[in-house]
């Protein structure tokens, strides 16, 4: 069971209170009608799915209900950072180096 920190509630809670929403910082095309089918497919389905340090969306669905973002090492499941929705993506390489990943 993962322990996850909610940056809104400011507490660590068990994974069962949360829902993972996949890769973070995927921007919806600002003008969908001018987006090509290939780009739209990319937006909908293509994810980096990397082995390593990764930014993903989480929702504290059985708590405050808010979406936030977290940086997780997909190999060890260690969380390296939690931050509020709307905040910029941290430097993943720097976080990985700091954590010795």
């Amino acid at each position, binding site marked *: *069971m993962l322990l996850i920190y909610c940056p*809104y*509630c*400011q*507490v660590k*809670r*068990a994974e*069962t*209170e949360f829902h993972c929403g996949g890769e973070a910082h995927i921007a919806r095309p600002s003008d969908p009608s001018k987006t090509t089918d290939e780009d739209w497919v990319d937006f909908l389905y293509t994810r980096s799915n990397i082995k390593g340090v990764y930014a993903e969306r989480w929702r504290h669905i*059985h*708590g*405050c*209900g*808010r979406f936030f973002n977290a940086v997780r090492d997909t190999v060890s499941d260690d969380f390296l950072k939690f931050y509020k929705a709307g905040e910029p993506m941290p430097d993943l390489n720097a976080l990985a180096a700091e954590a010795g990943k």
Partner: protein
Amino acid sequence: MSDVLAGGLITPDAGETPLLSLSSLSILKAAPLARLSFRAREASLGAAGTAFGLDLPVAPLSSNSAEKRAALWMGPDEWTLLAPEDELQAVFDAIESALSGHPHALVDVSDRSETVIVSGEQAVWLLNTGIFIDFSLEEFPVGTVTRTVFHKAPVMVWRLAEETFAVEAWATFMDYVSGLLVQSAKELEAA
């Protein structure tokens, strides 16, 4: 039980028999009350608090209470407001008229959920049979309120006093929640 903290709102329902009554633990159904779900941005909180008669708490997982009023932090833009059942319309209208022109959502959810009062020296032990939260007074002081999961049902837990908690669940889940609470508490009788 701290009536002051809960604004005198969370009281046992006199018409209901106790679900459990041991010397170290009791589980009682709480009397009905008015529950409002309120969502708004920071700029509207002052006016909402004045209309409700109680400031809305902004610290995560905290609550404010006064005579016949309680405001519970549910999220950064979401509160549960509690008042006596017969004041529902007056409270609703007061907030609505104070907030005309402010974007907000105010919804009567009084009948959506039910509350049981879990009280006694074994109350924390009992809640921990189904909830992964540290209920020590340092981590979860009196007045703390949170939504969480009890076994597989979403619940709200509000600490009314050191050994007294209000546990609220959606009405259709309450038999599951109170049933498991009572069943787990039977271990104490056997011990």
